[in-house]
């Protein structure tokens, strides 16, 4: 899985202020409203895919593409919420954002049925709890960094590279866990945000 969010040389201060004051109205609310319904549909398809994988060992290609497109959409919105990218996130599953965000998930020809069942019944124990515990602290640190980065961008127009890398790493980690729990990959997510 490859997830990147481009670190820009310069960040727009006006966009930063606009996002901070009205972002909830023009980014979060409209996207969250649509993502709620598309996400519900994604949950239904995920369950259908689970049944299919258990009986056939293959993840349906159409559903796989849908899930990856849905994740790309969420990534586009997240990149703006965390002020990691300028610009407005494109709506829809087919929206593109190549200039700023990039997510690639290779299609697995075969998915282990036993691993799928293991994740279904015990995923919370061996994935959710250990990763959730570490991610909780990482997200907490990330929100502090994000807060200080806001001032850095406002006064200098630049997002400190290491801070950007840390927050992108946190997102990458979360997406890896999501991909594993959604049966899109058999690779157990590593305990790192590095690419």
């Amino acid at each position, binding site marked *: 899985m490859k997830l990147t969010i481009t670190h820009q040389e310069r960040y727009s201060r006006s966009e930063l202020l606009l996002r901070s004051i009205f972002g909830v109205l023009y980014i979060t609310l409209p996207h969250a409203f649509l993502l709620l319904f598309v996400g519900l549909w994604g949950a*239904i398809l*995920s369950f*259908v895919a689970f049944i*299919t994988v258990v009986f056939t060992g*293959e993840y*349906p290609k159409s559903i796989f593409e849908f899930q990856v497109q849905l994740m790309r959409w969420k990534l586009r919105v997240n990149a703006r919420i965390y002020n990691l990218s300028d610009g407005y996130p494109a709506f829809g599953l087919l929206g593109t954002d190549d200039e700023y965000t990039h997510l690639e998930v290779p299609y697995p020809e075969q998915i282990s049925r036993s691993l799928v069942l293991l994740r279904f019944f015990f995923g919370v124990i061996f994935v959710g709890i250990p990763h959730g515990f570490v991610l909780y602290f990482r997200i907490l640190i990330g929100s502090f960094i994000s807060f200080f980065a806001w001032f850095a961008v406002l006064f200098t127009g630049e997002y400190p590279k290491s801070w950007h890398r840390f927050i992108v790493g946190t997102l990458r980690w979360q997406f890896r866990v999501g991909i594993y729990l959604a049966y899109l990959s058999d690779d157990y997510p590593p305990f790192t945000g590095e690419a």
Partner: protein
Amino acid sequence: MSIPYISLPQPEELTSREKEDAMGAYLMMLAAFAVSLPLPIINLIAAIIYFYINRKKSRYIHFHCLQSLLSQLPTTLINWGALYWALQIFFFENVEVNDYFYAYLGFMILANLIYFTFSIVAAIRARKGVFMYFIFFGSYAYNRVYSSKNILFYDNEEQPEITGQQLNKPPFE
């Protein structure tokens, strides 16, 4: 006068994606489980959404989506009836439990079991590229999709090219 039909594809002529998408149509009966909402309408809504998203992909997918959607209607109505009755008894306390209610519950369980079994078998066969026709709905879906009267354009079929301005038209269009 008989209606001409488009020849049916054989399993080896269908792509694996077509077979998977056709199978998915029947698995919409599990939608309520997926969202953890035990409402009979959820499966029907899911089947309608799936139908409109996938119907133009190919005739094979269209047929299975339509058959799956139509076959959900009777069980959805029966389940709604049971839910309404149960709410009247246990929630609003307007009526009391009687033998008719238990008989209806038995009928509902039987109808759902039949529907579930047929859908599972149809899903397995759809994934193998084999047609399975349900009573009433199968022949209707076949007529609707494979009749040459069906004017829907499918993604995997070549569309007739319209060249120039169409001045001459049939009298009843």
